[in-house]
């Protein structure tokens, strides 16, 4: 049952991410990106990581996608703005090298898990994904990184304001 849900979600996320990168219209690819992010959030729920799953929907599918859609609409792009490739064969080379990369990663996975799917001693433990467990780790072991993130976000806000305010 879980395996069926996983396979459906995997299919949906792979297909929708292929659609993201092949669409001509960037609004449509943004909408397909929401499908990808949503199916990954359900995968997180399937793994038991409820906190990160909710965060994925709020931050990615909510905030970041709204930002993308706003910028797309601000730019008001024409449909066929991008002509033919400047360099011939760039697409073919891109596919070739990425195929090589994918084969490499999958081979590494195959070597790493030569004795079947899960390494010995590893069991799915949904309890470690609960908000209280994540919060305990976040506020005890990772307190300094957590505080530094606030500085990062502040700097990002200031940077955006400075970039967009001036006319270069």
């Amino acid at each position, binding site marked *: 049952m879980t*395996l069926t849900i996983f396979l459906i979600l995997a299919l949906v*996320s*792979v297909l929708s*991410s292929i659609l*993201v*990168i092949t*669409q001509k219209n*960037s609004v449509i690819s943004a909408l397909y*990106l929401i499908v*990808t*992010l949503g199916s*990954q959030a359900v*995968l*997180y729920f399937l793994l038991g*990581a409820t*906190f*990160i799953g909710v965060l*994925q929907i709020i*931050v*990615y599918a909510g*905030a970041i996608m709204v*930002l*993308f859609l706003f*910028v797309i609409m601000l*730019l008001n*792009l024409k449909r066929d703005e*991008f002509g033919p490739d400047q360099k011939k064969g*760039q*697409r073919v080379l*891109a*596919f070739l090298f*990425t*195929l090589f990369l994918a084969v490499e*990663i*999958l081979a590494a996975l195959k070597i790493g*898990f030569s004795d*079947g*799917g*899960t390494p010995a001693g*590893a*069991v*799915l*433990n949904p309890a*470690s994904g609960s908000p209280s*467990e*994540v919060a*305990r*780790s*976040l506020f005890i*072991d990772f307190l300094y*990184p957590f505080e530094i*993130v606030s500085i*990062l*976000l502040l*700097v*990002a*806000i200031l*940077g955006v304001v400075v970039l*967009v305010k001036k006319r*270069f």
Partner: protein
Amino acid sequence: MVPLNYYLILSALLFAIGVVGVLINRNAIVVFMSIEIMLNAVNLSLIAFSQFRGSPVGQVIVFLVMAVAAAEAAVGLAIILVIHRSRESINVDEVNLMKW
């Protein structure tokens, strides 16, 4: 129960799709979306490892990655806006001022 390997293979596939998206698209916004796909693929493998290990540390790292991705998206989209203002285009082939 779904084995850990399945999650890692799905993550590798999504990462490869993101790489193809960065390489074949010339629309800067779609290139950004492909980068988001890659970040999400890595997040998926981090969460799978974390849940199979029974430790929340991987999820804290995913939390930090999300914060960095949000900052990156905001700054990157602002840069795209500025480029569009000065060049009337967001084709990444035309942004070659620093090209050797």
